[in-house]
Every structure is written in C-alpha cells, then in structure tokens.
C-alpha cells in the first residue's frame, strides 16, 4: 500500500511572525474582503441614516401645531336664529355660517385687548383654520346650551401661519404668497409673544382623519393608522401561516415532479409580478367576484397577503433547505413522523430565516400603495373604520372604507399646499415607528431562535 513517498519537500522553516509573500498576499486579500463587508454594512447604514435624517428633518414638525386661544362668543342670532335649541333646526346653520362668528369674536377680542392690526374681517378670518368652524359647530350641536355663552377655546390656526412658526413661511415669502399676508404674520407674532398663540404637540395628527387640501393643519393619520393596522393583521394572520405551510409542503413533503416544479416557478414568478397587478387581481376577485366592500382593509389585506406570500415562501424555503439533513434523520430514526420532525426540529431551526422573510414581506406590504389604487384604498376617507363593519354587503369584518399609511404619504405628497410635505414626512415617521414595532417583535423572536450547529 505504501506508495513511493513523494510529497513536496518539507517547506523550509519559517517563523510564524514573518509572513511569507503568499501568506501576506492572502492576508491582504482577507483584509480587503473584510473591508468590503464592512463597507457594505456601512453603505447600508449610511443610506439609512441619510434617509432618516431627511425624513426626521422634514417630518418632526408635523407633530406640532399652532393654536390660538381667545374668548369665543356663540351668538344666538346667528347660530340658532329661531332660538328654540332644536338640534334639527340648528343643524341648518352650516359651517359657513359659523365662520363669521369666529371671525367677529376674534376681531372683538383683539379690539378689547387693544392689539393693533390693519386687517379686515375676511383677512382676519383667513388666519383661522377652515377646520375651526366645523369643530365649533360639532361642539355646539352636541351641547346646544353653549349658545349665547362666551367660551374660551383653543382654535387651529391656518397652515401658513403654522408654517411661520415652523420656519417654512417667512415675511419675504409671505409677500409673494397669496394665501397669507405679512399683516397676518405680524399679528400672529404679536399674539405668540403674548402667549395667546402657541405651537404645541399635536396628538390630533395621529388621531384625526385626513382633511382636504385646503386645511393641511387638520389632516391626521387616524384612519390610515387603523387601516394599516387592520391590513397588517390580515397579512400577518394569513400570509405567515400560509407561507410557512406552503414552504413546508414544497420543501419537505412534495414529491419532486412537474407539478412541484410548476408551483415553485410560479411562486418565484409571483414575486416579480408588479404590485399593481395584484390590485387588478384584487379588484376582479375580491370586489367584483366575491363582492367584498371596495376600499376596505379586508380586501387590501387580502391583496397584500397575496403579494407578500412569495417573499415569505422564498425566504422560508431557503432556510428550511439550510437545515442539515442529519437533524431530520435523527428525529426520523427515533420514530418521529415526518410531520413531527419538521415541526419539532426543522421549523425552529429555520425560524430566523422565516422571521426575516416575514419582516421584509411585512415591510413591503406596509409600504405599498400601488395595489391599493385599484381596490379603492387610495382615497379620501374621513370616517373611522369599524372592526366589524355595520354596513357591508358581504363579509363584515374590516369592511369599512379606510386608507393606509403609505397611501396617506402618497396623497399628501401630491397635494399642492407645501404644508403637506411636512405631514407626509410625519406620516413616514409614523409608518417607520409602526414598522419598528412590528420588527422589534420579530427580531426578538429571531434572536431566540438563532444558533449555529
């Protein structure tokens, strides 16, 4: 058996400390390789930081809003001309009827306080948000006794005035701006010095529904947050189990045949289908065929589920495949069924990858607008959606119209008033927080499952 011994002559004695040329070359390439890796991570994080800075820089101010407080006299002759406090009658006075009341009170108060300004009633009223009359009207209709009283209220100021306190609007731009005047700004400044105008934290941004383009100051994310939440629940509840189940079947049970190949190719192909096509599908299947409500988070969630599934399946399959066969054999050899070996051993070991796929899939679903376009969720919705819809012609769960966070971002970036830029960035911040909360859970879980063997 002994062959003629003919190995390369024993290498000359070399010190461990003095690397030979080849080793140093290899080490240099090692260093380079490592540096590439570091650079790659660095690029990723740098890109994130840059994006975050721009988002935060633009959007943090959305969480603050400027208000004015002054005594508001709810004059009877305008608000309840008949004087019988009948809500039905009082409702005849529209918000347009309330605006003069607000303006007159303001004018009167300024005069009483001796605050100088050179503006007429119209210009003065234009300082207030268009939302203000609606709020006061709702307040009065809810409590007719207020009529005739003078109440101290905090009222939203218009978007341009608000922008002035956030640095978006200056005296110079105001000169060119048709929607705000220098006089208005001067008055706002005076009042701010007196403390009657304050810029404070604005919960309403998170809770209120969207508002039309003419009142950016009142636009909020309430409906969008609920819509996104519902959709994410649908996606999580459906996509994760279905995706994992499909992957398990394909990776562990499916016989290798044409059909399995077909499914496999199909799934990777579905990942490449533009998301708007899922919208077309959703419209055809869920709304036209199954008659779910249009604009509903249920349909949105279903569409996003279909869209997310390939991502989760691809990730899950890859990590199932990465579990060494010896683990499966050990379990099978003990008399575990295939199902048991998968659920007891393989799946937990594949969990990090599954969770990664879920994180990425959900992130994608959370940020997606295009498919929602066709199922009517890219919309202006002011009514808060109920979990169980009270007016649905089919499946009632999550059947009310709603929007979603990315939709709100998308619509706000299209609005003409520059005040919406800040709100769009604010919405992105909320979206990212949403994402981080979802990720945090997945990441914690992932950490528990991560191990090398």
């Amino acid at each position, binding site marked *: 058996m002994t062959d003629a011994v003919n190995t390369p002559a024993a290498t000359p004695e070399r010190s461990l400390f003095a690397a030979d040329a080849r080793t140093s070359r290899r080490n240099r390439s090692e260093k380079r390789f490592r540096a590439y890796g570091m650079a790659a991570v660095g690029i990723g994080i740098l890109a994130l930081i840059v994006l975050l800075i721009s988002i935060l820089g633009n959007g943090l101010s959305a969480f603050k809003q400027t208000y004015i407080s002054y005594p508001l006299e709810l004059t009877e002759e305008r608000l309840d001309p008949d004087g019988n406090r009948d809500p039905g009658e009082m*409702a005849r006075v*529209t*918000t*347009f009827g309330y605006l003069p009341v607000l303006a007159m009170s303001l004018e009167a108060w300024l005069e009483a306080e001796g605050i100088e300004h050179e503006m007429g009633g119209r210009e003065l009223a234009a300082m207030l948000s*268009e939302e203000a009359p*609606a709020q006061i*009207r*709702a307040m009065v209709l809810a409590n007719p006794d207020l009529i005739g009283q003078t109440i101290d209220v905090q009222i939203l100021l218009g978007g341009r005035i608000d922008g002035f306190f956030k640095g978006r*609007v200056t005296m110079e*731009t*105001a000169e*060119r*701006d*048709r*929607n705000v005047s220098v006089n208005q700004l001067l008055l706002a400044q005076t009042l701010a010095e007196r403390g009657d105008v304050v810029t404070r934290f604005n919960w309403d941004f998170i809770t209120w529904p*969207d*508002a*039309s*383009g*003419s*009142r950016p100051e009142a636009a909020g994310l309430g409906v969008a947050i609920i819509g996104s939440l519902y959709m994410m629940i649908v996606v999580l509840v459906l996509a994760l189990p279905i995706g994992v189940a499909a992957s398990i079947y394909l990776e562990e049970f499916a016989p290798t045949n044409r059909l399995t190949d077909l499914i496999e190719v199909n799934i990777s192909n579905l990942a490449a289908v533009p998301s708007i096509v899922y919208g077309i599908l959703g419209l055809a299947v869920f*709304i*036209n065929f199954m*008659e779910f*409500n*249009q*604009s509903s988070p249920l349909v949105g969630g279903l569409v996003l589920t279909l869209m997310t599934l390939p991502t989760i399946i691809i990730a899950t399959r890859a990590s199932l495949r990465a579990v060494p066969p010896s683990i499966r054999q050990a379990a099978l050899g003990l008399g575990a069924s295939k199902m048991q070996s998968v659920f007891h051993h393989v799946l937990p070991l594949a969990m990090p990858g599954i969770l990664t796929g879920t994180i990425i899939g959900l992130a994608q679903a959370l940020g997606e607008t295009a498919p929602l*376009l*066709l199922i*009517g*969720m*890219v*919309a*202006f*919705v*002011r*009514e808060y959606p109920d979990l169980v819809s*009270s*007016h*649905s*012609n*089919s499946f*009632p769960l999550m059947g009310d*119209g709603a929007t979603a966070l990315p939709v709100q971002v998308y*619509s706000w*970036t*299209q*609005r*003409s*008033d*520059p005040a919406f830029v800040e709100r769009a960035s604010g919405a992105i911040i909320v979206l990212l927080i949403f994402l981080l909360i979802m990720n945090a859970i997945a990441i914690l879980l992932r950490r528990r499952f991560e191990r090398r063997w």
Partner: protein
Amino acid sequence: TGAQAQSRDNVQIAGSSTVLPYATIVAEAFGENFDFPTPVVESGGSSTGLRRFCEGVGENTTDIANSSRSIRDSEIATCAENGVTDIIEVRFGYDGIVFASDINGPSFEFTQSDWHLALAAELPVDGEMVANPNINWSDVRADLPDQPIAAFVPGTRHGTREVFDERVILQGCEDNGSLAAMIDMGMDEDAAEEACMELRADGVSVDIDGDYTETLARVAADGNGIGVFGLAFYENNTDTLQVATMGGIVPTVDAIASGEYPVSRPLYFYIKAAHLGVIPGLQEYADFFVSDDIAGDWGPLAAYGLVSDPELAETQAIVANGTLMGN
C-alpha cells in the same frame, strides 16, 4: 340582530386626481354639514374612475366618477354593456393650465408659438424638416430671456397633456405658420398636425408621469425649468413659483372663466342615475357640490383655485332634475 349584512350607506366616488382636491373639499364639508357619512373619494385617474363607474350597477360599484375630461363614446358604450345606461354629466368648473418657473429666475411672457418652436421635435426650415435647433429661449424669440430651454410637461397619461398638445403646441404651430409650411411641403393635414405635436426627445422637454409636486421638485432642482401646472397648484405655491403670461394674459380665475386665457380644461363628475334614491346622500352630495355656496365664485372651491363654471346655474338644474346625458 346585527348579524344581517346591511347595505352601504356612504357615497363612493372615484376618478381623476385633478378633480380629487375639489371633491375632497366638498366631501369634507358635506360630511360636516349633513347627517350622511362623509363620502369616500378615491383617486386613480379619470380612466380608472370611469372604468370602475362603468363596471355595473349595484352597491359594489362606484356612484360617481370624477373626470378631467368628458366621457368618451366608447366608454359610454362599455357602460351601457354593463348596464350603466343612465348617466348624469356634471361639469362643475374649469382647471386653468399655467406655465410657471422658479421665482428667482427671470419672468416669461410666452405665446403658444414660442412653445411650439421650443419643443417641437422638428421644424420646417426652407421647405425641409430639420431637428429643432433651439437651445435657449432667446433662440426662439429674441426678447425672451437668455436661458436654456427646459420644460417639464405632463406625461402622456395626463389629461393635461392633451390640452397642452392641442391648445399650446398645435395652436402655436398654426400661429407661427409651421403648419401651413408643412402642408405646403406636401404633408397631408393629419400628418402635419401630428408632426406639430411631436415633442423633442433630446431631454429638453421632460415628460412628468408623476404629479405637479414632482414638476415643482424638478423646477426647484433644475432652476432653469419651466413647468406646466394646474392653476390651483400654482396658487398654493406662489411663494416659490412665478407664472408666465400666455399671449399677454395673466392666468387668473377671471381670465380663464372669461376664456381670455387660452389654456384650460373643463372638469366633470358623472353620477350613476340608477343609484340616486338608493345610496343615501348621493343626491344631496351632488346638489351640494354644485351649490353656489360651494362651487360659486366665492365658495371654497374657487378659493382653492377652481375656475367656477360661468354656467353654474344650468349645471345646478341638471343635477336637481337628474337630467341624463344625451337628453
């Protein structure tokens, strides 16, 4: 028992993103002042809006389609195929189309002819079509500023583009005699018109597939760019944009309403008559939309930049009476 499914009780609207801002203002006010829920207003373009509108009759279809153009005959035919036969057309105002540039740059006074000379792919010169040689606006007309031509025009999916092509470029082509020159060169009229409207593809004219905010961002990033905007959009951004005149007319609500300013387009919404009396609030919404309080000269729509329809009273009558299209 609440288990029985109930019917939809809000108005569902879909369509043009140009109409969207107005529709939302109305929907918002409608929700505030009536006992009906606030309508849901979807955006997605006139095409999708009408497509959804024409999908059929029933709760699961939209009640109103917003459109920045009038409905086409082929669409009406599709509608009819799907059972949507009774449509009420409501023209509620006009959208002015303006040309604006960065506020810090020079100001412009355009004619349609300038735009044609600046953006046409080819121009007739001495009986031959040559690639557009103009680089600066001053090449187009000596008294325009000496600034590189850079135009951000709406992409071919936007209705505004249609108006831009016809009212600005084609008109300019006619005005400056190019059209006639081309016909003289032996082109038939259709081909000549088409040649007029073909824009140059060398990067001087940039199609914008996004919305006006994208145009604004590009104008801001470029500095030299002239953008095509809706009047309302411009009105909300007068601090960063300056508007150019067209044929010496400053685009204002009045100038557009009177037809003096040449570039504008009508805005519509279409009501599915079959849903009137079925969907709560539909009739009320439509009435409210065209009421003087809302769509009139002093209403919030005009404040936002809508050019009120001078014939608003007729529109109000159409809505009140439910006059169907074609009647």
